[in-house]
């Protein structure tokens, strides 16, 4: 009995239910639900205290998601397209916290393009998930800016514009961790989430997350069928936490290892081609090539563990800013004469 019970808690004595949120109100089969359960599992398996996480989101079905995971964590469901700024300010309050942001393709790439670009430029340490379904789910299925050219949707005609590729934007925007995955590939989503949670800097995860209600026709690029038939993983990815000193017996030349800041590692086992996610210069060629071949490339596309993160440049105290006592935030009384003297 006792052993059975033990198997249901993690190293910090929490059970899976400590990581759950409110019951989902998203459509059954929505890709977002699948991502949410991987967030729960990743945090559970990494033994993260829910109170060490802060959740952020904008507006959309995808942005509702933080309600459905990590119910004990603090979170802020902000404005449409303006989540990155909110998260930036909030994370200054206590930089020991880990931010997990959930956004949609509309929230990030249409209305939120500006803040998306700037949060990458600042390298805010945060996991930034974009649940990408090619439509605006919450407002009933209008085209989003990631919808492919020529996509036909009921009631909305044909999309005449070229799509924006979130990965391109992230790479060009100098994000220090860029990955793509597919909600229909939960294991990869989970391993990427774990790796992203160990990254010190912005970690952008573009996860194709089908909207079963408005954009799941077999030939639509954000559908389950398309994902299943066109996904090409760059590598077989597994995350190795610091505590587990696992010897992975991959053959020489078969795998690549990325050392993370916190001592954990990402193991990338070669699948088809050689791919080096630390070399930014080849990414666009690779993506363009995949585009022509109609391949949905997934995996860790780019990582830079050297770039300093936002808070590294601020010379902040050890303890969180939001716990500084009053005497530390108000200058001492004797300073006022000096200040007045400076006023001529």
């Amino acid at each position, binding site marked *: 009995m006792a052993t059975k019970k033990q198997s249901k808690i993690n190293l910090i004595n929490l059970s899976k239910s400590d990581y759950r949120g409110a019951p989902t109100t998203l459509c059954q089969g929505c890709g977002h639900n699948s991502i949410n359960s991987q967030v729960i599992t990743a945090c559970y398996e990494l033994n993260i205290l*829910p109170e060490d996480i802060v959740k952020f989101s904008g507006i959309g079905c995808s942005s509702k998601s933080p*309600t459905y995971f990590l119910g004990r964590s603090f979170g802020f*469901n902000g404005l449409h397209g303006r989540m*990155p700024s909110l998260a930036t300010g909030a994370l200054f*309050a206590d930089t020991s916290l880990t931010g997990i942001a959930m956004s949609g393709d509309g929230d990030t790439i249409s209305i939120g393009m500006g803040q998306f670009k700037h949060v990458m430029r600042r390298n805010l340490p945060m996991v930034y998930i974009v649940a990408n379904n090619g439509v605006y789910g919450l407002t009933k299925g209008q085209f989003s800016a990631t919808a492919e050219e020529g996509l036909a949707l009921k009631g909305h005609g044909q999309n005449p514009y070229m799509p924006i590729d979130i990965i391109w934007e992230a790479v060009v925007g100098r994000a220090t961790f860029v990955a793509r995955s597919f909600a229909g590939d939960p294991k990869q989503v989970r391993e990427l989430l774990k790796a992203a949670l160990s990254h010190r800097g912005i970690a952008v995860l573009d996860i194709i997350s089908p909207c079963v209600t408005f954009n799941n026709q077999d030939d639509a690029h954000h559908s389950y069928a398309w994902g299943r038939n066109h996904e090409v993983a760059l590598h077989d990815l597994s995350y190795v936490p610091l505590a587990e000193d696992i010897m992975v017996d991959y053959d020489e030349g078969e795998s690549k290892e990325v050392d993370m800041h916190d001592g954990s590692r990402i193991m990338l086992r070669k699948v088809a081609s050689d791919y080096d996610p630390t070399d930014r210069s080849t990414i666009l060629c690779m993506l363009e090539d995949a585009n022509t071949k109609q391949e949905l490339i997934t995996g860790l596309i780019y990582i830079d563990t050297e770039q300093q993160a936002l808070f590294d440049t601020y010379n902040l*105290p050890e303890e969180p*800013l939001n716990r500084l006592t009053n005497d*530390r935030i*108000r200058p001492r009384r004797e300073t006022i004469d000096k200040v007045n003297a400076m006023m001529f």
Partner: protein
Amino acid sequence: MTTVETKIQSNKAIASGSVVNDFSISVATMNGSGSQTSNLTLLRALFKMGIPVSGKNLFPSNIQGLPTWYTIRVSKDGYLARTETIEVMVAMNATTFAKDQAALVPGGVFFYADDIKQAITRKDIVAYPMPVKKLAKESDAPASLRTYVANMVYVGVLVQMLGINPQRIEQALDFHFKGKEKPIKLNLDIIKKAAEWAEENLQKSDPYYLEDLDLTEGQIMASGNTAGALGSIYGGVQFVSWYPITPASSLAESCIEYLPMLRTDPETGKNTYAVVQAEDELAAIGMAVGAGWGGLRSMTSTSGPGISLMTEYASMAYYAETPVVIWNVQRMGPSTGLPTRTSQGDINLTYYLGHGDTKHIVLLPGSVNECFELGWKAFDLAERFQTPVFLLSDLDMGMNQWMTSPFKYPDKEIDRGKVLWEEDFEGLEIWGRYLDIDGDGIPYRTLPGNRHSQSGYFARGTGHDEFANYTEDPDVWVKGMDRLLLKFEHARSVMPQPEIVKRKGATIGVIAFGSTDPAIREAIDYMSEEDLEVDYLRLRALPVVDEVRDFIRKYEHVYVVEMNRDGQLHQILSLEVPERATHLISLTHNDGLPLTATWIKGAILGEERN
């Protein structure tokens, strides 16, 4: 150090009919010609001579080439408002030469750069040429600095001709160049040469003199934006996010200037603050709201166009009950309007900023000193009431240098409002983020980083119940909005009191706010001279307190004076005291220039004597 020795002492015997320490000087230059140092040097020297003085930069939205005027008013009576008359003109700009001449009062003085080959057409003024180019060329200044030091020529000529105390000039330069000997000497030399030239070549034949007084003792000189920044720093600001915009930029820039000195932890050498220049105002307020929610004393500063971009987050902060301090240093709108001109046109926008039923605490500093005082108080109010608090300043107050009483160290402990940390949860029976336990409409909040397993909640702009859970229940919505109103009414009772200045026998009242204060006070003196006694209420905050309503009810006529077209404060007050609405009279003037006492007096007398 070099000293300017002038022979102005010879003018000591000031003739009768002279005008001493009571006139306005206007310096007409070209934008970007480097006259700012000269003008500030004059202003500061006069201040140090003990003469009440104010300086206003009336400048175009342009970096280089368009005409700009700097006006200095000296007033032995202590009046600091702008005047409509100019007694002394310094004409350095060929393009406005004729206009500047025409602007002078009869008998006025016209100092002009002699390289401007235009006719002196007025016979009723005294004109003095100044060999600006020649003296600049003869100076030791490197060629690159020549146009810049050329502006010191008029300083030297004014020193000699008006009688400015040269030691005070030196003091001003020493301050400006932070004691750096080289630039101080360079500038002093040319001032000295110009003064000597004036002494040898000009015969004083005008009546305007400056004399040492002792009326500025104990005063300081600062801009509202500097004061606002310092007030924020003493208020414990921990997070500043901003996006550049005239006339607000120098507020955030002053934070950046003074924070390292005042808020580096002496023990650890670490910063107890963070400043982020955002990509736009949407992001600036987003960051500030995020930081406020996170438990930091956070602020952002902007002007009208930025305020409109901040609307959506301000609304959310009101509804999600997030403290944040927002400075609106007003300029003239709509749109880009006159971006370098002053106005009070955003009071309605700011008070009601948002969608749905939003209304906010708006603090209305009426002096530079008050920018400091309300600057620190704003954080206490924002955190106490868990809501955005706005401060409404304007270009005139924010960017110009004013003499003001020294900043006073906060006389109240910092109030962080109702915050629960881990230990506060021990023995706590019930807690909901939006649960009103005390009956004052103010719930208790928790901050991210609190590791107690009951402390977390999901903040949102969507409908929520007392436990921060999503709901669209109509009754819960109404209850929530009613509680916000209760909280607002509670805030009303602790708003800064208005300042009321009474006069014996007053029959009418005036209400105003912000930078118009000096002009109103001066106008009241003038009206008294014409046997109309006026009581004055200077509003310091919205929502209004009972004293304001009482004041409005007291007089047959109460004039609401403001710098916008539609009488926005007048509208707000009419709603507050509807039964007196017909007794509230709106007086507005909005041309981008600071109000003058003459206009106010004319407007009120015009109404009263009609």
